[in-house]
């Protein structure tokens, strides 16, 4: 398996030769990966749901509470200024990580869902009217589907969907036809949380712009795993969550183009988002705080900053390369299991996500057996993507997802556990 350089070095591509840190070594930074479940070492294959956290992130958050816990943007005393500076530094780290032009374009939210809802309420409320068209895709997570359904219900807008083919690839020919109806917005995921499909984001955005539509990218499954450049993509809005990228829960990001964010009305009202308040009217604070009502998740923002430092040290290209190799190994090993069906695209178009079924064993039974017999944690169910499940005629699938700390021996444990399931269910 590929290993990692321990310094950011964006200029070079021959990473494998300068191997310094292997996934086995990286695991040591994650205290939870040393624990046991049911008397067996934990094999964590559910990073697509939430990643584990390295010491560096946990300690950075603890340090905030130990040393400079105070509210931000208010106090004129030492520790409040320190907290404010650290939180705003985290915002700059996020901006650089996704290559945003300015940190003002990074709005802290609770998670990807809240980021999308913010756009649906604020931008959508001001710009979407009866009869307007919003395009999404069949592979969306509920969080990039339900907010648009609600917006359509409020405004009388229409929804159309880019379908997927049997391999889980978007039907770009149908997309081209839908664009002829002059949509206002195209909302799509960059990496499917179920099939692992990496969508042609740059192409989707360019075509949307050519048709006069704006775009929203659900990057919850891409930003943690592959280099994402918002300017390179020319994305109008892009949303992701900290907890899937080594950071804490409770904080997410909305990136938006500056002129769009400037023109949008506030989402929630409260402290910190105002400039002046009178009893009957108020004026709004500058970006990004206009969209951050109330005391923010301070420790979490700083923790996200530490997670980004950690990812940068490994290098996102190296992370993507490692996941490609571990996914290739997993696909190869899983295909040796009789009765196992894998869903989704070939390796070249796939992130570190493998959804599968095994014979007629219900995925929840599979997940329970893997947990009890092999200490393997996988996801089972509809993965918050019920329309996609319907598309494939499935009630549920089992899903294994990989990250920087996933090793070939994790895959081997999964395969052994699946053989055990076959033994128990006997087919």
């Amino acid at each position: 398996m590929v290993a990692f350089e321990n310094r950011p070095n964006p200029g070079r591509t021959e990473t494998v030769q300068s191997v310094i840190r292997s996934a086995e070594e990286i695991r040591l930074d994650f205290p939870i990966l040393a624990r046991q479940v049911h008397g067996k070492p934990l094999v964590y294959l559910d990073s697509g749901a939430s990643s584990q956290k390295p010491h560096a992130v946990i300690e950075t958050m603890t340090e905030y509470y130990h040393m400079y816990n105070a509210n931000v943007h208010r106090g004129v005393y030492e520790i409040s200024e320190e907290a404010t500076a650290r939180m705003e530094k985290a915002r700059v780290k996020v901006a650089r990580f996704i290559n945003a032009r300015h940190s003002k374009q990074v709005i802290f939210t609770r998670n990807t869902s809240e980021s999308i809802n913010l756009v649906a309420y604020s931008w959508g409320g001001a710009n979407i009217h009866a009869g307007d068209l919003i395009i999404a895709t069949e592979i969306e997570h509920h969080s990039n589907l339900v907010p648009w359904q609600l917006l359509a219900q409020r405004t009388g807008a229409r929804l159309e969907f880019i379908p997927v083919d049997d391999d889980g690839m978007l039907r770009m020919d149908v997309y081209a036809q839908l664009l002829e109806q002059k949509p206002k917005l195209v909302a799509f995921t960059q990496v499917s949380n179920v099939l692992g499909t990496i969508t042609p984001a740059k192409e989707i955005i360019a075509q949307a712009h050519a048709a006069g539509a704006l775009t929203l990218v659900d990057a919850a499954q891409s930003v943690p795993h592959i280099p994402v450049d918002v300017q390179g993509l020319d994305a109008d809005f892009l949303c992701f969550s900290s907890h899937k990228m080594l950071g804490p829960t409770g904080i997410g990001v909305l990136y938006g183009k500056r002129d769009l964010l400037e023109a949008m009305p506030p989402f929630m009202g409260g402290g910190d988002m105002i400039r002046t308040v009178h009893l009957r009217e108020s004026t709004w604070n500058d970006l990004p705080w206009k969209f951050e009502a109330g005391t923010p998740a301070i420790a979490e923002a700083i923790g996200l900053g530490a997670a980004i430092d950690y990812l940068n040290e490994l290098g996102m290209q190296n992370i993507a390369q490692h996941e490609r190799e571990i996914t290739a190994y997993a696909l190869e090993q899983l295909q040796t299991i009789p009765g196992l069906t894998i869903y989704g695209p070939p390796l070249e178009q796939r992130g570190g996500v493998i959804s599968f079924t095994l014979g007629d064993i219900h995925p929840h039974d599979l997940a329970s057996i893997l947990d009890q017999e092999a200490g393997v944690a996988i996801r089972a169910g509809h993965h918050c993507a019920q329309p996609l499940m319907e598309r494939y005629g499935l009630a549920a699938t089992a899903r294994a997802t990989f990250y920087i700390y996933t090793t070939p021996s994790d895959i081997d444990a999964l395969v052994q556990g699946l053989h055990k399931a076959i033994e128990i269910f006997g087919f």
Partner: protein
Amino acid sequence: MSMDYYREYILDHYRNPRNYGTLENPNAHAEDSNPLCGDQLAIDLLVEGGRVAEVRFKGRGCAISQASASMLSEMIEGKTVDEVVQLGKDDVLDALGISISPARTKCAFLSLRVLHRSLALAGLEKPGDHDEADDE
């Protein structure tokens, strides 16, 4: 109790469900699904003279949800409505003979919930008593 979900008798109920199917003229019926994993279950009852004369269930889902439905159907056949109304989660757990992790309780108790709902819809039981999610 063991954490070993997949004991032979549970798998036997899963593979060879008792009372599987539907009734032509049920006088109590309900169905529900478990949104978490998509387990589906429908129960038909024929209540005669205050007793469950016949029971059928139909569904699809994990071994735990379907085996517990099969066991429950055996448990209630021939019982008086008063007895069936009293059935609770402990009775299902006793029949399964395993302890259920919190994430799987919705699977294990789906059939119990549908059973009580069918009695409630038929006016044989006060609605809501068995329909609430656990707080624990």
